[in-house]
């Protein structure tokens, strides 16, 4: 259960359906670089409910065949150059959703349901272009009342970064409970953490309230500053200088490859 980052990402195979959280949660960026280093291909990447630099890098490095999410945003560093290039080339299949629909699809999986209904969406071109959603009649209404049915998505794995884990394999995610939903919706979860502590997080009721139990966890690796260069809600702020550098270098494919060489394959950190 407690392992190295290399052993952790080795579980993530070609063609995996991989769920990752949004930037305000905890992004396993070091694990993402390791996925690129190990050469994983054809990921079906699910941004829950959005993604950012993580998806941008994986798409740019050619690891992704399907990207399913509600947005790919680099925040103030937008537009995302490799994502934009992939869109223009049509080289990655994009499944565009809206945030609560991604949550609903995962929650259906978490609850073992074939689908969840969801309000809104009707009249959006998202619905007209989505390959999987259906519009059904609300069975409890006597008059016309259409509602969107969102089929379950069960990822092969969830991958994220959290503040703490213990030696039993429990992970403290605190208020970032979308990580609990993601993990329970997925077949398993691979988690990098700032720190692995002695004892059992569940022995303290204050901590227990924010714990993902080990039942749902496949592997944990201790990776301090594992979200770099992104911010971490229980850690450092973003490395703005690096993100500006990324924006500059990734503007061309050559520059992006140089970026990969330097910051992914050679592992430089500034």
């Amino acid at each position, binding site marked *: 259960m407690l392992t190295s980052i290399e052993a952790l990402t080795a579980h993530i195979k070609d063609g995996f359906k991989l769920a990752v959280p949004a930037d305000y949660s905890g992004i396993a960026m070091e694990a993402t670089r390791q996925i690129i280093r190990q050469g994983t291909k054809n990921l079906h990447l699910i941004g829950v409910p959005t993604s950012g630099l993580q998806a941008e890098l994986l798409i740019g490095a050619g690891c992704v065949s399907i990207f399913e999410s509600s947005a790919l945003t680099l925040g103030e560093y937008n537009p995302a150059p490799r*994502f934009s290039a992939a*869109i223009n080339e049509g080289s990655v299949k994009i499944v*565009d*959703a809206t945030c609560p629909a991604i949550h609903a699809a995962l929650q259906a999986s978490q609850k073992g349901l074939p689908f969840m209904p969801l309000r809104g969406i009707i009249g959006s*071109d998202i619905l007209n272009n989505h390959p999987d959603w259906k519009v059904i009649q609300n069975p409890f209404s006597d008059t016309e009342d259409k509602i969107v049915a969102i089929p379950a998505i069960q990822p092969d794995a969830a991958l994220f970064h959290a503040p703490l884990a213990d030696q039993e394999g429990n992970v403290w995610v605190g208020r970032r*409970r979308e990580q609990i939903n993601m993990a329970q919706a997925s077949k398993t979860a691979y988690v990098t953490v700032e720190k692995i502590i002695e004892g059992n997080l569940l022995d303290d009721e204050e901590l227990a309230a924010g714990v993902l139990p080990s039942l749902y966890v496949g592997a944990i690796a201790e990776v301090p500053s594992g979200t770099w260069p992104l911010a971490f809600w229980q850690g450092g702020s973003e490395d703005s200088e690096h993100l500006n550098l990324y924006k500059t270098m990734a503007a061309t494919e050559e520059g992006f490859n140089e970026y990969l060489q330097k910051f992914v394959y050679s592992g430089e950190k500034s």
Partner: protein
Amino acid sequence: MTAASQKKALICFIAKLLRDCNHVAVGASSPIPGAAALLAKAVWSSPRHVNILGSTKNNFFTNGSQELFDCAAQGRIDAFFLGGGQIDGAANINLMGRGEYPLNTPRWPGTFGSAYLYFLIPKVILFREEHTRRVLVDKVDFISAPGTSDDNTYRTGGPFGLLTNKAFFKFNKNEKRFSLKSIHSNSSLEDILDNTGFAFDYEKDTPITAAPDPELLTVLDNEVSAKIKDVYPQFAQTIFVN
């Protein structure tokens, strides 16, 4: 009017729109609406609840990132802000991209929660500083979220109005049309007509947007600025002297 005082005027303008709300949610990268919500709470204690999404310290949600959507569906969020790369005269918004989907040029980040929140939050304020025909179009290229729905579609929310750096429009749901309510002092009716890509209702003598209440500005500068610095440090630098 300096850029800073223009932004402060927008903050004060929005604050007044939020005074009748209990709970206002704002995106972490929406400093002007966020500052407005914090100002309104400071001055009137209304809204009572302000939630800055994506922030940790100024966000009271504890049920993961789906709580925003559940909370909206419960009718517990009174006001929210949406923007868009394109906004059209029927209040349809496009966050997806210009040109034909899916090969948009440019492609924008994506629809986020707009295709849901626009249906369920009663007072959605469309806010986009840029007021040009590039943004305010006759018809969006992609409807991320529609401005209106037919009567058979469950919808408890929708557009209240549109605020830009030139003017404020209110949206008329029945006529599916914006009507110009006030023109900011840096603009004119002619300027608005020149730079708006959709048709809208207006009076020849549309009033100038009232200058911000000096008391509001004082509270903003003296009391709320620290809080805004805390939440939006880079933005705070651009509008506050120190």
